[in-house]
């Protein structure tokens, strides 16, 4: 009788252990997947920023402009779908993405005759600022979800 009970307890403990380990593995995998997705999206943001800077900084011919516009718009669309997959509706990241798209594809984007803009032009500044804001939002969303208070406290010892 006592043997049966101890066997049962052993199996229950094994079951609980398996469940906990499995759950931890799932969480770790989900975290890795999200991390790699965010890294991928941040790289896309930086690609689009570079393309937009090139687009505005050089006065190319009309055919080049059409092709460049198409590439930028397509990459923005991929970024939008990627961000939407990991973000709930009305999340601030979507607002940052809208600002990023507006900074690149506003009215100046459609102009046939493009003058090359200087590096410190307000249009380029706003593209850079919007890109930074979007990357910050993506990174901070990851931190909020997976922040380990102890780790953060180690990293920023003077913050209380």
């Amino acid at each position, binding site marked *: 009788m006592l043997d049966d009970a101890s066997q049962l307890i052993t199996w229950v403990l094994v079951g609980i252990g398996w469940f906990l380990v499995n759950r931890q593995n799932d969480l770790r995998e989900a975290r890795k997947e999200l991390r790699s997705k965010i890294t991928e999206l941040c790289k896309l943001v930086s690609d689009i920023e570079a393309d937009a800077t090139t687009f505005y900084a050089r006065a190319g011919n009309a055919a080049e402009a059409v092709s460049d516009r198409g590439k930028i718009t397509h990459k923005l*669309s991929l970024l*939008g779908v990627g961000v*939407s997959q990991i973000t709930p*509706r009305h999340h601030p990241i*979507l*607002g940052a993405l*809208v600002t990023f798209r507006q900074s690149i594809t506003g009215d100046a*984007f459609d102009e046939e005759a493009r003058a090359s803009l200087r590096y410190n032009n307000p249009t380029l500044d706003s593209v850079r600022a919007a890109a930074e804001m979007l990357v910050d939002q993506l990174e901070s969303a990851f931190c909020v979800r997976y922040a380990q208070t102890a780790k953060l406290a180690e990293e920023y010892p003077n913050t209380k």
Partner: protein
Amino acid sequence: VDFTAQTNWSKFVIVNTVIISVADDFSRYPAGRSRTHGPNSGERFREELLWPNLSNPLNSVTVKLDGTRGYNSSFLDEAFAGLLREHPMLSNDLEQRLVLIGKDASIVEEIWGYIREQKARGKNR
């Protein structure tokens, strides 16, 4: 109390739902604000597809945004907020009669942002 006197019945009586797929019914490459920017502009989308369907107060319009190569902000502003600029009578019930569907939630959010901004501008005039 006469409730009917203050009721906007178009909010409640929608007879037809028209589905517009931007990619299938307009173009896979929507771009530009006005017709001078090209054949697939926001102005043409608004005047040839959105307005003819929304001008009937009994219609509700569902716009499918997927399938295109992407959107630029000027296209979205002209096509959707432009509706309220050019046809201010829609400002009463556009939000009840327009449905936007797309995988990219930021596009949907951007369009509603333009519509709300334009509505606020119209009220402040």
